[in-house]
């Protein structure tokens, strides 16, 4: 058992997979010599050499395109797109190429690759370096989307993503890179499409992802300690595939559901989950399903403004309390 930071867990997960399978390769901007701008790939160049760990030019289309070609023909590439926002400049691969290949070729060609990105806000980086882009990725049939919130989940889900036969977008939260957690020794392999109940509770279900997971846990503590409201906090972890069983099971127990999403409101991942709940668990609900999100705005840079925009512990507490007492 070791205490690892979230960023060390990324390197540990990649190293585990590269050691296991020589077809696993890593490419991206500043990932090799510099160890990544978020220092999440430190030591990999030294351990696996320059043929397997590549520094690329600032050429996101070449990064994802090359990853795809390599994946189609036998490698298992892990491609880093430094900030998730930059998926915008290589969106063709996310939208048109990766997810459609298997289907269009009637199963002849797969794209077993992982795209890792630093996702999310909180660092005062402004509107083009802070976005939560889960919903940019989860709308395409054929693409999988994962976002871990703890170091141990980083290792296990990254390993699962690398071994998955389909393309996976792996969203690492920038504001979690410095956080620490226990990670057992030895190989760790998790399962895509599994959510985790992190805290049991009888009164409401909170569905959260990434940085919103620790905030929801804190909010649940406050709601319990100060208001006697018991919240079941679920780390959704994997949006595609989605652990509908776990989510619907919890809603059936609590009768109320809240999503806590960092993305702006329109078409955030929670809207899809709430729609599933409305379809399949309507009669379990004792009140409206409520989405707690960033409002319909781009993220501002100033700290005072960014803190108001992204759901805070306080806002989660207030919205849940208010909604349950209404």
């Amino acid at each position, binding site marked *: 058992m070791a205490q690892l930071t979230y960023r060390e867990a990324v390197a540990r997960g990649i190293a585990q997979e590269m050691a296991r399978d020589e077809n696993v390769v890593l490419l991206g*901007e*500043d990932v090799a*010599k*510099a160890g990544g*701008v978020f220092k999440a790939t430190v030591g990999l160049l030294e351990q696996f050499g320059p043929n397997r760990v590549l*520094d*690329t*030019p*600032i*050429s*996101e*289309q070449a990064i994802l395109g090359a990853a795809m070609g390599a994946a189609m023909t036998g490698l298992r590439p892990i491609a880093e797109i430094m900030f998730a*926002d*930059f998926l*915008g*400049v290589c969106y063709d691969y996310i939208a048109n190429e990766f997810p459609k290949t298997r289907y269009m070729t009637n199963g002849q060609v797969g794209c077993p690759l992982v795209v890792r990105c630093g996702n999310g806000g909180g*660092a*005062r*980086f*402004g*509107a*083009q*370096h802070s976005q939560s882009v889960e919903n940019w990725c989860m709308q395409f049939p054929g693409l999988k989307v994962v976002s871990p919130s703890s170091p141990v989940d980083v290792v296990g889900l990254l390993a699962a993503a690398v071994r998955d036969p389909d393309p996976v977008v792996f969203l690492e939260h920038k504001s979690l890179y410095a956080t620490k957690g226990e990670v057992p020794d030895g190989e760790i392999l998790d399962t895509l499409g599994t959510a985790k109940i992190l805290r049991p509770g009888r009164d409401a279900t909170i569905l959260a992802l990434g940085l919103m997971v620790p905030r929801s846990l804190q909010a649940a503590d406050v709601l319990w300690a100060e208001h006697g409201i018991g919240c079941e906090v679920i780390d959704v972890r994997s949006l595609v595939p989605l652990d509908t069983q776990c989510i619907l099971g919890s809603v059936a127990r609590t009768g109320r559901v809240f999503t806590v999403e960092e993305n702006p409101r*329109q078409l955030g991942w929670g809207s899809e989950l709430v729609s599933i709940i409305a379809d399949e668990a309507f009669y379990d609900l004792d009140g409206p399903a409520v989405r707690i999100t960033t*409002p*319909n*705005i*781009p993220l*501002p*840079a*100033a*700290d*005072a*403004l960014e803190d*108001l*925009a992204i759901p805070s512990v306080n806002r989660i507490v207030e919205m849940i309390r208010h909604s349950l007492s209404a």
Partner: protein
Amino acid sequence: MTQKTRPTAGETVPTGGISPDKRLEMYRLQVLLRQAEQRAYDLFLENKIKGTSHLSLGQEAVAAGAAAAMRPGDLSFCTYRGHAHTLARGVPVEKVLGELMGRDNGLMRGKGGSMHLTSVEHGVMGSYAIVGAHLPIACGAAWRAQYKGDSDVSVCFFGDGATNIGAFHEALNFAACRKLPVVFVCENNLYMEYTPIADVTAVKHPGGDRAGAYGLERIVIDGNDADVVYLTMVKAFARARAGEGPSLIECLTYRHSGHSRADPAKYRPPGELDRWKERDPVSIYRRRLETQGVAAETLDAIDAEIHRIIDDATKACEAAPSTSADILFTDVYADGGCSWRN
């Protein structure tokens, strides 16, 4: 591949024909950019500036020489490393520092931040944080000028690293085939983020060696010499205004600080920074002016005046309230708000 780290003098060195007033203007600008960036750096260390920030320390000659050659009405398109280019167009220091500090007196009242400085009234049409994005945008502004018969030129600043993204090549080709009045200024500071540009680029001169592919002249200049930058820009502007099309100018320069605030720049080979500091644009320029007979007191007075300006701006920013919550929801749409449903 290893990058040749010895500072190379510009391969094209135009000379002469700069008025004493213009020279003093360029000195003043370089001192302003130097002191403002140093102040920004100090304010980081005091944790009064949050987030990230990309300084142009060491690259002042490009911003000063280019701005000195521009007319009011010409348009600047900058990157996240845009403080210097923004200040060089006359945007007050207080507004820039205020924006970096997230204060109500900031250029965009904190909504944009360090990477997105924009001041339309000064011709600063934005700072873009997605590498390469603004090259095609500058083409569009130049296309408008051509279409409307306006005489302004669009100037697009970017780094060596940006030449490896598709948008660079698309913009160059588009501008060249439509003969657009746009000047592309590639500030080659030898590094993309932490990776030497030579490690990831097929040619030695990321800008200059690509020019031929778009039918443009290969222009590689000493970007640490404001006079050289100025004279090269003057020619490029004349060409653009005469309807002869775009130019691509590679300026050889070096950033004295790390890529951004998080970067201690440990990847630099020993001695490289020192060698470039010997060619510090501000000191070189000052020595040149003194050799040309400008009194040291005249230059000292400029230094002191700038120092006062920066101090006053800092005080004003420290006294300014932090940006107010009510602007969180404004200006998402043209109706002023963020509402998308009734």
